[in-house]
């Protein structure tokens, strides 16, 4: 067996375990699959996945800022990879949270029921908007593969025109997102250690 196959096998096993846990969660609830209690209703993964995953995505906006705003051309070659990493980081965060939320099919409620006082409301909106911005920033890479499709070319040109506002919007949104993740814990000083 080649080495790469072994790695794949291990990944498939992890995927299988995770899938069975996910199915259990949607049949028997969070109590059966997590060790969450009324005392500690948020799991370790809130810190690990949300904070860590989003921090990983910080590379996307820092590199984009260096490349497009500060004009540091040395980083041009890695800017696309950084944006893709950020995009995947955010997608991983959102998918991970869908299993953690009690009623994930209600996640769109943030669009219509507003409570601007809540730090989590800010986090939710930043994630949704920044995910869209990252998607638009990365789309040109896909469009370049299909130079013959006129519609895609038109979108590509339109996106190219607004790329600087998009990058600036991305920086604004990620600044808010990264800071609002800290604001989350302002509401519970007694839950922080020490």
């Amino acid at each position, binding site marked *: 067996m080649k080495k790469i196959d072994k790695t794949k096998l291990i990944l498939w096993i992890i995927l299988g375990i995770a899938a069975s846990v996910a199915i259990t969660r*949607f049949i028997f609830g969070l109590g059966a699959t997590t060790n969450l209690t009324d005392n500690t209703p*948020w799991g370790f993964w809130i810190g690990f996945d949300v904070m860590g995953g989003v921090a990983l995505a910080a590379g996307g906006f820092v590199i984009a800022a260096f490349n497009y705003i500060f004009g540091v051309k040395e980083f041009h070659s890695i800017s696309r990879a950084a944006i893709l990493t950020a995009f995947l980081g955010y997608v991983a965060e959102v998918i991970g949270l869908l299993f953690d939320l009690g009623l994930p099919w209600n996640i769109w409620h943030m669009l219509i029921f507003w409570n601007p006082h809540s730090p989590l409301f800010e986090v939710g909106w930043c994630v949704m908007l920044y995910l869209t911005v990252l998607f638009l920033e990365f789309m040109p890479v896909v469009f370049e593969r299909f130079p013959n499709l006129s519609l895609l070319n038109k979108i590509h040109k339109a996106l190219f025109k607004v790329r*600087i506002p998009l990058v600036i919007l991305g920086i604004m949104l990620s600044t808010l997102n990264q800071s609002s993740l800290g604001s989350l814990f302002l509401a519970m000083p007694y839950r922080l250690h020490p």
Partner: protein
Amino acid sequence: MKAILTDITKCIGCTQCVTACKMINNLPPDKPREWQKNDGLSSRNWTSVLRKQDFFVRKQCRHCNEPACAAACPVGALHKTELGAVVYDSNKCLGCRYCMMACPYGIPRYDWDSAVPYIRKCILCYDNLISGKIDQPACTKNCPTGATIFGERDFLIQEAHRRISENPNLYSDIIYGETEVGGTNVLYITSKDCPLDFLLYYNNRIEKGLNLVGEPDFDSPYPQLTKWAMSSVPFAFVGMGAIMSGIYWVVKRRQKIEKEKKEKENEEDRQN
């Protein structure tokens, strides 16, 4: 605003309030599960009676004047009503459990054993009071000794002061909930021998020897903790955009000037 006053010295621990609460809210029987706290509250027990030495302390949602849970909820599923109750709209909830994290009393509980879980807590019998079906919550109505009573908040605070001044040797000076976390609609007066500081979550931590970050301000409402940060969000957003646009403009201009300079030099070289 309506409120509840619980007098610890009068409670005999009969748990009639617990039974009445379960009856009126159609709560199924509950068995102890590993995810419950040891205070008797759960998603199926919205009030409970704790034993503290020779006293009984009834625990329930405090219905804060400025509730931390309502400020924390991203979709506004929890809100303070004009009646005084903090109520929950399960149609809005998305299950993030931020309210449970934010509550200074650790009151909201979760349906951990359900595939469609909701937040559960005392709602001061809000639906039944509004529809006029009952004139006071089931717990206060069924209390045999009048240890827990329902009424206007101002009146109950007067009544509490009256009881304390009439019996200063028995009662502690503090009315729990009068100013605590900005005032609550469930008030307690208690004996000198049974302080109720343990009801506040952070006091539990201090008892365990864990410190707080910063100085705790016991009387300020909890939403104040995040208000300053949340109100500066628009400025941070617009400010960041302005700074980035400004830097972009400066960098572009410098590049342009440099380019023109180089072209000029090139031209001069050619002329020479």
